[in-house]
């Protein structure tokens, strides 16, 4: 039996870890570094999923980990219920599994384990048993992807009490949020995005304390409108914000990062600075988590200068053809137009165009 002595833990529940260093990494490399660190520092961690071990993952994210950690990193059958149920059962007995669901769309065949099983373990037993699993998956549209490989389902999971949900959008967050998830004693779903995996490298601070889950981040400061967003689409939001800056409109961009736990204070603070709110997500607007953000702001009683705007996917399936996709998903242009109208107090000529 491996020694399960945990690393020194300070009073806040964070763990002081390895030497701090900064490396230039892609998002995928940052995930890989986080997994390696978790496997090194937490002997109770396991990493498994379809093609994650010997092949190193279909996107190369788990490359080299099986070689370094042997049987603690293993390939599974194409069996999402077995992967997730296996993770839950192992977690109930002291392991700390990190399970990969290759595409978030595949989680639907095993939703029972994520909704009916994992979040009930602690609750029903009143803490006598827990299921600290981390589920890594990736979501969103990419060029040529079909309707079953393009969805953004974060609202599904955010709707379930007992599940934690995070969506990292930068290499630093890919590293930090995954480690926070693994260190967290709740079931956590970390939704990555494959279009970010092999993008530009940026400085990633490695090592140091593993922080608790939660907390939004201001990605851009601005005084005219607050854009609350999360996931890969925020790169389009930041591009749109630069476009608007040239026109004299300054958008503040708040990356929610975690949908559960939500950071309502950060949302209220950001919106109170500009008194205008737009929510942008790649997921469908209808029933999307953006409505939760708008509801939070409405309930907070903030005096807004204009009605809030939601920009997300239109109510359609996601088509494969690259030319069709902008007819459904948010684009830089749709986002810029939506923000422009919001700030200028114009009514949208065609509200549907924003959705």
């Amino acid at each position, binding site marked *: 039996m491996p020694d399960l002595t945990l690393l020194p833990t300070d009073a806040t529940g964070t763990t002081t870890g390895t030497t701090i260093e900064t490396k230039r990494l892609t998002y995928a490399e940052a995930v890989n570094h986080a997994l390696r660190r978790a496997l090194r520092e937490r002997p109770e961690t396991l990493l498994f999923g379809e093609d994650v071990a010997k092949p190193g993952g279909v996107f190369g994210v788990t490359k080299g980990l099986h070689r370094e950690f042997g049987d603690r990193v293993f390939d599974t059958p194409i069996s999402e219920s077995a992967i997730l*149920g296996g993770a839950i059962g192992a977690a109930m007995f002291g392991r700390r599994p990190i399970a990969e669901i290759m595409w978030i769309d595949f989680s639907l065949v095993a939703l029972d384990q994520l909704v009916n099983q994992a979040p009930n373990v602690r609750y029903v*037993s009143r803490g006598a048993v827990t299921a600290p699993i981390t589920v890594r998956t990736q979501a969103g549209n990419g060029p040529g992807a079909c309707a079953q490989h393009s969805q953004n389902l974060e609202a599904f999971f955010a709707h379930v009490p007992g599940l934690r949900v995070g969506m990292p959008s930068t290499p630093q967050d890919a590293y930090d949020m995954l480690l926070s998830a693994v260190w*967290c004693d709740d079931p956590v779903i970390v939704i990555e995005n494959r279009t970010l995996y092999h993008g530009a490298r940026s400085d990633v601070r490695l090592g140091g304390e593993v922080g608790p889950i939660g907390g939004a981040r201001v990605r851009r400061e601005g005084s005219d409108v607050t854009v609350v967003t999360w996931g890969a689409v925020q790169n389009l939001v930041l591009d749109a914000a630069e476009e608007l800056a040239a026109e004299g409109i300054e958008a503040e961009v708040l990356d929610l990062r975690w949908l559960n736990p939500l950071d309502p204070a950060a949302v209220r603070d950001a919106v109170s600075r500009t008194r205008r709110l737009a929510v942008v997500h790649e997921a469908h607007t209808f029933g999307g988590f953006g409505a939760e953000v708008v509801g939070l702001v409405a309930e907070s009683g903030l005096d807004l200068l204009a009605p809030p705007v939601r920009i997300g996917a239109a109510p359609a399936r996601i088509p494969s053809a690259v030319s069709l996709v902008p007819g459904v998903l948010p684009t830089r242009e749709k986002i810029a137009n939506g923000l422009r109208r919001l700030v200028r107090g114009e009514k949208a000529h065609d509200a549907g165009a924003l959705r």
Partner: protein
Amino acid sequence: MRSDTPALLGYFERMLLIRGVEDEIARLRTAGDMVGSIHLCSGQEAVYVGAVAALDLSRDAVFPTYRGHGWALACGVPPEALFAEILGRVAGINGGRGGSAYFTAPRYGMYGENSIVGAGAPIAAGAALAAAFDGSGRVAVAAFGDGALNQGAVHEAMNFAAVRGLPVVFVVENNAYSELTPIADMTRNPELFRRAAAYGMPGGRVDGNDPDAVARAMETCVQRARDGAGPALLECVTQRIVGHYIGDAQHYRPAGDLDRAVAAEPIGRLAERLSAEGVAAGELDAIRARVADRVQAASRLALDSPPADPATALEHLYA
């Protein structure tokens, strides 16, 4: 008295306790003290006491179904904690959070009923996966009914356990009915244990009305799992002598089916065997009286416990 008589007397008493608890639950449900859907296991007691006899509950883990009262009692859950759980009282084993169909008793090696058919099988495989790393020698038991053999999650769990050589025993309580429908109408091959071969693991069928036979078969499965030889599938052929749930009129059972089930049920059969082995009728009656007293005392204790406090309903969701 033969050498196996003390063990058989133990089975007899434990099966009587399960039957007595189920009868009392039926009474409390009918009287309105208990509410909701309740699935009794009367008639299937030999599976639970036999299987649990082969386990080491200080380390092994049982994952039963929503028809789980018998598994819990066989594992040693006190009947008062079970009654109180179903009554929704503070003294319930989960303080009323689980109810009849979804309670858990990890202290007793009983890691939770499951109200989703077959969903416990992959979780049991996970418990066995942990054993592969922690050196505990734990064996996990995934128990489910015949109907669960048609669930995808059970297929996934069996293949996963087999391919990784995990210490799991898959126990099928074949009571001939998938809820209200005969299993024979829902699968081309009603010899369910034969599926094991497809996963490359041993499978076998045992008389699920004979606790001794179940225990012996289970010992073989548990020992080989503990020795690292991987999972096995054990089909225990038994029957319900009650409905799928309390209130089930059982119109779907053909004429004579229920009578045959009652004739085959394990408690009467074991009483006959014990008599044949020379146990006096008075001794069996004394056990019956002792169990009946225990059930009544447990029921009274549970009814005296206050209802669970709604102010606590939000606790224990997160770490």
